[in-house]
């Protein structure tokens, strides 16, 4: 996951919060917007797979990083031009079938033009009255004369999700279908079996003797697909980004169901900090409120305090290195915050 399992984690763990709690942290909102645009761009066209803009962002980071380099981090990218895009054609004629769940299969394929033209000749060589189909064979009961159905392909499809039945076996063919019913296969897939969606009908006589239904229920069986699905859906929606899908990520977002009450989504926060700074002889001893302060080599110092409402007496003492002289300065600071009710102006006023 978890992090982990999720970011989820570092950078984006906050996106969930942003949505809900964005009112408190403006910068966050901006970054998320920027990022989500980037995501959209990337997800919108996964099929065309635009050249990935990999090195860009990190390069910038490297330039800006001011910390000294660890020797091991220096790494020169060899000059050779890297390949920038994955191919869309590996030159094969193939179709492959995968199981997604008890009800859905996924198939992808690749067919070369010359192969298709050759096969088209078997149907007369003309596209007139011919369409591309995926023929789905259900071989659960029988391999010979197995029942099948056709999916007519549109456009330039390279893959398809196929509706299926639990605990059934299938293979598919991609091929050309003539309207007179003739079919030529361009490629045939592997065979797969979908998982069952419930308890097995098979019972082992050596392992009988208790109430299967009750055992199933006690094990949480009737919640399968219900609770586990709901829970995980919640997770995925809220968690956005956990690295692991299993459990972790979600929790904290579930844990903080922050709701934005303001209907208008406008917000305003303000806080105060106090900066106390000064200077003395570099070898003097300085205390503020009884705590020693570390001086910079030039004898200056800076302290920074969160400043809640209240009155604060900040007694500062500087003692000379020879211990003979002490100077005292005592700023007294008071913060008092008023929060008048929000003002709503009428909209038509400019």
């Amino acid at each position, binding site marked *: 996951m*978890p*992090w*982990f*399992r999720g*970011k989820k984690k*570092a*950078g984006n763990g*906050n996106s969930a919060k942003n949505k809900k709690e964005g009112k*408190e942290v403006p*910068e966050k909102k901006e970054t998320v917007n920027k990022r989500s645009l980037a*995501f959209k761009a990337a*997800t919108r066209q*996964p099929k065309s797979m635009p050249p*990935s*803009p*990999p090195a860009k*962002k*990190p390069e910038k*980071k490297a330039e800006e990083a001011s*910390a000294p380099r*660890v020797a*091991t981090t220096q790494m020169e990218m*060899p000059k*050779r031009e890297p390949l*920038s*895009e*994955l191919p869309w054609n590996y030159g*094969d004629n193939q179709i492959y079938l*995968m*199981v997604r769940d008890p009800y859905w299969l996924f198939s*992808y394929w690749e067919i070369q033009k010359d192969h298709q033209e050759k096969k088209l000749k078997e149907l007369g060589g003309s596209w007139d009255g011919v369409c591309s189909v995926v023929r789905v064979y259900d071989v659960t009961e029988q391999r010979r004369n197995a029942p099948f159905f056709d999916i007519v392909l549109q456009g330039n499809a390279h893959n398809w999700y196929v509706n299926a039945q639990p605990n059934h076996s299938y293979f598919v063919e991609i091929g050309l279908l003539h309207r007179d019913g003739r079919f030529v296969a361009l490629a045939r897939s592997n065979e797969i079996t979908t*998982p069952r*969606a419930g308890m*097995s009908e*098979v019972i082992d006589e050596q*392992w009988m*003797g208790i109430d299967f239904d*009750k055992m199933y229920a*006690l094990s*949480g*069986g009737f919640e*399968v*697909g219900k609770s586990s*699905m709901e*829970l*995980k*859906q919640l997770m995925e929606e809220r968690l956005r980004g956990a*690295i*692991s899908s*299993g459990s*972790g990520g*979600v929790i*904290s977002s*579930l*844990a*903080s*169901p*922050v*709701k934005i009450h303001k209907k208008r989504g406008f917000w305003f926060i303000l806080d105060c900090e106090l900066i106390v700074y000064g200077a003395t002889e570099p070898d003097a001893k300085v205390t503020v409120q009884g705590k020693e302060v570390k001086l910079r080599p030039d004898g200056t110092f800076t302290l920074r305090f*969160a400043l809640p409402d209240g009155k604060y007496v900040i007694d500062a003492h500087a003692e000379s290195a020879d211990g003979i002289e002490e100077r005292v300065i005592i700023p007294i600071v008071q913060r008092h915050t008023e929060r008048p009710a929000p003002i709503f102006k009428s909209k038509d006023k400019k």
Partner: protein
Amino acid sequence: MEKGLLSLVLHAHLPFVRHPEHEYFLEENWLYEAITETYIPLIHMFEGLLKDHVPYRITMSLTPPLISMLKDPLLQERYIKHLDKLIELANKEIDRTRFQPAFHEVALHYYWQLTQARETFVNRYFRDLTWAFKKFQDLGHLEIITCSATHGFLPLINRTEAAVRGQIVTAVKQYEGVFGRKPLGIWLPECGYFPGVDRFLKDVGIRYFLTDTHGILHASPRPKFGVYAPIYCPSGVAAFGRDMESSKQVWSAVEGYPGDYDYREFYRDIGFDLDYEYIRPYISPDGLRINTGIKYYRITGDTDDKQPYVRAWALEKAAYHAGNFMFNREKQCEFLHDFMGRKPMIVAPYDAELFGHWWYEGPEFLNFLIRKMAFDQKTVRLVTPSDYLRIYPVNQVSTPSMSSWGWKGYAETWLSGANDWIYFHLHKATLRMTELANRFQGQNGVVQRALNQAARELFLAQSSDWAFIMHTGTMVPYAVRRTKEHLLNFLRLYEDMMNNRLDEGWLNYLESKSNIFPHMDYRLFQE
């Protein structure tokens, strides 16, 4: 004599994220945060239990990418740098919160936690935390199991047998090198099981794996004891199913413990809350605000007006929740024991990073739970799955159902409109890997190195994490980029080898960048 057995399984995993080519890389923080917030707190818990002679057994999977990162000198160095910055920040926070006693207490807590982490990491385990886990395994408290090489989701990458075998054998070899023994069990990535994968486990001597609940419940023939006893696959490898009740108690939206109002709020981090100029040295160098790990609030309730975190209250709750969890397991075991006529096995698997990273008090919860179970009751005993197989060597033979612990219970998270394009390429690379391994077998030197690197690039492209991230929709560009980068590297190696024009300089670069599995053996892909 106890009435039931409980197996806590913590799955620790992070994808291989290591970018020597950049001085700073945001995603490397995943590792650093997990070390500080989860792995080290767990190690501290194990140490405390040892010191107090508390008997317990717990199971943890440490995935090969995580082990590789924990053992990597560059990342170790960078972690210390990261930690030192955090300690510096915590130090400033102690001063800054002087007028806010509630915050001041929390700042002190962080300072203490971070300096302890540094001490443990640097001085006690000499930067390599795998030694800590090994120690507790060797002492007989921890059972470390393996995972597949790069957390590849096996039901979707199994186009060839070699693809599955490669992931498993490579993981097992790494495990033996690090822990000096063979792994008894495996965490199938995302609990992704398909009938037949157990044969590959059998071949490397693995005795058990874990599945989600329905993997067992929908097994055939019907499992007599439901999810409360393992089944043996036809290969003889045991499958243990997840118990839903104990899972939900820990991570359900409604009933879960981590949402308690006294626990720490994850989403209020000073990386976002404090003045920009002040926090700037501790966020991303490009100025992007990120989490620092210093968080001052408790969940408080369904409100925006969050209240300061009170550590003592949170610990109190963790103890209470541990007691509640234990009580529920006792009742569950008593009931099931009478119903089944034998001791039920309750398997409670979680992401390790849930404990500490997401649920900040999670390690304390575990600590209380283990101690209470050892001293406050006799109904339930903590065991590992291999302990169970010693207690009950005879179990029903049945074939689990294809399943995962992902959304909807199958493969949809890793096979959806957002990520289905990857399989066309992953599978082709798998086939070509075997082609290369067959064609160039027996060659030495640079060809052999190129073959091994090609296998590394393939493994890294197979990580289920990339597809997962694409599916969930956050950090997508990084996941897409990683998938393509490794596939393109693979392709290039393939073409260079087939055309007899290997570029050794470039190979050196790849080897130093993606340096996972130094003992990679491409021959795993021969068929």
